[in-house]
């Protein structure tokens, strides 16, 4: 079976290697340049100094934000490559997963290979296992590569590594996505028995599942943490902590929400900083002078950046479990198929 798998897929392996090499040819030079700039501009040191504490002194950021802006400006075009990495798994799914069973049906060769002495179930287990292993290796290679490449871009921005897109292209989740995409392709192939429809539905199914999990399910993996910051404090939320902020509001000392979706900082009865993300507009021109705001504080609900790996493993677990389920369905379907 190893020989058959190699013989049937060697062209695919070759193209995959070429594609990965082409990717590396772009990523290695740009990645090196980014890492170089990241360190040499002083951004790296500045961020290290800012640390990952939840609250930092208002001036602790130093010139970080200026350097960070510079960096982002210089490499902003490369951020778009990040989008490409989001769809890499589905490519593996449609080229390795979808044709696995569907192509045999389309060519009628299932009648040849399933009537050999080995039997179709052993064929399926061996084929799924070997292709699964190959896609695992491919996924690990690009997951590691992209994580390295993306690190400075994510660190430099003030939207942490738990955020959409950033989270999806680094760590171990790309491996989970890839195994899921391949399993989805295989499973759908047992139904459509045609390669192109299997590919098309794989893309659609992958997008739907990814979007639902990303926008609906992921934020419930762990309950968020709250952090209180008095509006008169001279501290600020650390923008470099890599937190995933769900929301901010200004709450009175008695615990009633004064300003939803807003953060406020006062000094000597005057507004130093006020930012509103919602539609709520404060009725007062100067809330800092309002007696209602006496002892009020900012309340931030968020996932700490330190939970990055917890989220990574949970999300990977979810997708690997889905993949295992799909493979099991595919095997059952093959056993019962007529």
């Amino acid at each position: 079976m190893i020989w058959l798998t190699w013989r049937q897929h060697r062209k695919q392996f070759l193209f995959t290697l070429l594609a990965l090499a082409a990717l590396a040819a772009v990523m290695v030079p740009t990645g090196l340049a980014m890492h170089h700039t990241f360190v040499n501009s002083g951004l790296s040191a500045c961020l290290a100094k800012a640390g990952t504490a939840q609250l930092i002194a208002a001036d602790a950021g130093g010139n970080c934000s200026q350097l960070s802006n510079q960096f982002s400006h210089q490499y902003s075009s490369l951020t778009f490559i990040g989008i490409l990495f989001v769809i890499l798994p589905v490519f593996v799914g449609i080229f390795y997963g979808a044709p696995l069973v569907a192509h045999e049906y389309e060519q009628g060769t299932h009648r040849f290979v399933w009537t050999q002495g080995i039997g179709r179930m052993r064929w399926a287990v061996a084929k799924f296992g070997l292709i699964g292993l190959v896609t695992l290796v491919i996924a690990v290679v690009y997951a590691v590569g992209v994580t390295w490449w993306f690190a400075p871009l994510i660190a430099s921005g003030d939207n942490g590594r738990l955020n959409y897109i950033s989270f999806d292209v680094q760590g171990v989740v790309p491996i989970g996505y890839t195994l899921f995409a391949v399993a989805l392709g295989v499973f759908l192939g047992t139904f459509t028995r045609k390669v192109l429809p299997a590919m098309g539905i794989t893309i659609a199914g992958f997008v739907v599942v990814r979007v639902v999990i990303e926008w609906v399910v992921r934020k419930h993996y762990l309950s968020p943490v709250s952090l209180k910051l008095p509006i008169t404090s001279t501290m600020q939320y650390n923008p470099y902590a890599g937190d995933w902020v769900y929301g901010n509001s200004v709450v009175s000392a008695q615990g009633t929400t004064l300003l939803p979706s807003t953060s406020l900082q006062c000094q000597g009865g005057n507004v130093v900083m006020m930012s509103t993300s919602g539609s709520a507009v404060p009725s007062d021109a100067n809330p800092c002078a309002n007696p209602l705001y006496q002892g009020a504080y900012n309340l931030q609900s968020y996932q700490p950046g330190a939970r990055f790996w917890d989220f990574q493993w949970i999300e990977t677990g979810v997708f690997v479990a889905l993949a295992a389920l799909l493979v099991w369905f595919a095997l059952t379907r093959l056993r019962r198929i007529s």
Partner: protein
Amino acid sequence: MTEETALRAEGLGKRYGRAWALRDCTLRLPTGRIAALVGPNGAGKTTLLHLAVGLLRPDEGEVRVFGHDPRAGREALAEIGFVAQDTPLYRDFAAAELIKLGGKLNKTWDAALARERLARLDIPTDRPVGKLSGGQRAQVALALALAKRPRLLLLDEPIAALDPLARHEFMQTLMGAVSDTGTTVLLSSHLLADLERACDFLIVLQKAHVQLSGDVDELLTGHRTLIGPRETEASALAGTATVIRASRTDRQSTLLVRLPGAVPALADGWRAMEVSLEDLVLAYLSVGAGSRTENLGELAAK
């Protein structure tokens, strides 16, 4: 049953949606026979063969190959050599690679036999089989099926797509190969003429039902064409035979009948003629094409 049974079907049926592709199929193919599975396109020949090799799962009844359920384990698959319709092979594989592949997918595998067979036919083993002619590809598929040293060889319309010369060569190779080994063969065709000389067992399928099955010699001695005056038809037949097909002119009746035993004494003006295999098949196919007769159970000889 003194002879061992290679293939046995008992009330076998397969349905696609609401339409039955095969139904009430009961037959027994003894070992060592060369059996022709004959019927028009869509009669259920491929369905029967796919059920026998385990590609399909029966919706009712059962099929056994040397006593094994082909869906249950690998025992049956090890005994069967199967050449599917249009001889599907990995088209980018060379014959030599397919022979190597067979060795990896089967416990018993005679690679030398397959290579020697192809060498004798001057078929290049280093070119992708997709680039060979249809006849050559059929020979490669046959060589692969035979390399398994099967006890039962199933071939689904192996020669339908071949030109007359390639047909002849294919049948010659097939017969040469199985005559020394005693392999049981079941091959389907919508043309009887291709198989008539080679086969000693016949199964006729029509509209998903087995119309006739049995040893060719027994079938031929068991049927006669009776010709005589139309007015004495009823008396001539009285209790002697089942009419399979009748054609009548104003004065004369021509009846193909199934005899219960020896040829009976005939009324004046009647004579009995032996039937050819082709007449027999056509007669039973025409039965199936019309409304099926009630005595189907009798027609489907066990």
